[in-house]
């Protein structure tokens, strides 16, 4: 088993955290994992992305030139990475913010109304967790429970009060899968 994933979006959408949770959960499940962020002069509103690899073998390169999965939280991210996806791979598209269609027929396109559901829950900032819940339950290589436990470990003490609503978002995303 080896999954190469790229999480991409605006700075502030929480794409780094999504990737970290996958890496952390993979580590908990005793996979080899790596998490590599883009670290250009990005700022809030700019684009950000990270590459996460989860594998049952040692991970040689922590970068991915042909990812299995791309998660695009906004349009610039979709346009930037859609052509890199391995044939037969998948793209998760944040339908709430992306109207444009994917013009490849050799990959699977999964549309998730991440912001819409987040807004229904009353907190637009948890769109990332809606998306992540969907990915986890569709890909099935990590249990959702482990992701929730990881979230608890990864969130700093002063953010622990947000656990419940994040878990709710994960569940809602999962239910759509």
């Amino acid at each position, binding site marked *: 088993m080896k999954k190469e994933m790229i999480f991409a979006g605006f700075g502030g959408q929480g794409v780094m955290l999504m990737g970290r949770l996958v890496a952390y959960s993979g580590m908990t499940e005793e996979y080899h*994992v*790596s*998490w590599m*962020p883009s*670290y250009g002069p990005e700022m809030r509103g700019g684009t950000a992305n990270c590459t996460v690899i989860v594998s049952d073998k040692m991970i040689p390169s922590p970068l991915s030139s042909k990812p299995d999965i791309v998660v695009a939280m906004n349009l610039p991210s979709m346009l930037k990475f859609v052509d890199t996806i391995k044939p037969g791979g998948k793209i998760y598209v944040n339908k709430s913010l992306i109207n444009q269609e994917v013009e490849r027929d050799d990959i699977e396109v999964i549309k998730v109304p991440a912001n819409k559901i987040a807004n229904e829950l009353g907190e637009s900032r948890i769109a990332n967790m809606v998306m992540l819940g969907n990915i986890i339950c569709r890909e099935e290589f990590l249990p959702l429970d482990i992701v929730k436990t990881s979230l608890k470990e990864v969130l700093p003490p002063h953010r622990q009060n947000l656990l419940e609503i994040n878990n709710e978002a994960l569940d809602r995303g999962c239910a759509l899968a």
Partner: protein
Amino acid sequence: MAKKILMKGNEAIAEAAVKAGCRYFFGYPITPQNELPAYLSWRLPEVGGVFLQAESEVAASNMVYGAAGAGARVMTSSSSPGISLKAEGISYIAGAELPAVIVNMMRGGPGLGGIQPAQSDYFQATKGMAHGDFRLFVLAPSSVQEAVDLTIDAFELADKYRNPVLLLADGMIGQMMEPVSFERSIDPDDLPDKPWATDGAEGREKNIINSLSLDPAELEKHNQKLKEKYDQMEKEEVRYETYYLDDADIVIVAYGTSARISLSAMELAREEGYKVGLIRPITLFPFPKEIIAKTSEKIDDFLTVEMSTGQMVEDVELAVCANNSSVHFYGRTGGMIPTPEEILAEIKKIGGGK
């Protein structure tokens, strides 16, 4: 086994320094290594240590000089342009034979360059770094766990040889997260004795820490003494890792991040039937020339992969010259990282092995 935690390379090195008994850090911020001082800025006070952000890199390296002279386990970190500024102090530290650990998270250059990963400081790191005839002990990790292990080793080696040790990595190793565990922990109260330190002369002859030596004959003696130390490192401390040397027809030589990417390229090549092996130097000084020389007895083609226009490749050429093997080179620069596919294309160009 200690619990695994997911950590950035920069933070993991910082924690490893604490685990190695280091209690003093002097530095100046620069991307892509800022998480390292940021971590130590709260972590060192927690264990009774000193974190100090100096007014400049030059000041920071001279603070390291002072602390090392007083016998402290001390560290500084920077990235390429900052290391150039620290080089003066590092020459004094090497001249005065003091143990210290320096981290260089390389970024593209020359000048201010960029902030993305590069391996363009190999010459600077391994060929003396600054004025005077000296060498740093240079360690090059290729994963976050190895960065942790080598950081702890770096402090031990620095004390053993009374020589500055450079941990040479790049923005990728610094920024990426991988699982690490901290197996070793050294009590700062239980460090090797430093009878040469200037830590108060009460009841003994005074010690002098100095790098000025105006008598040429004396200075030559000192240079020879340093040389003996470097020779001993070359004899006793060489480290490397090899893959598939038994059946290889082409051997890649790469360190750090380039080695990680090259391992992926090696896998791709092997899937297509190319018999590719790899030598990954872990110590860049002392350089693992013997294993490369020995390998060149039966290998005609070497491919050196670096994130530079070609620096380590010169050491590989020297190592294989007796056997007339061809040394090919592939490099990306400026913060661009080679892809496994690009390296595979180079392997195919060389053509052997299939």
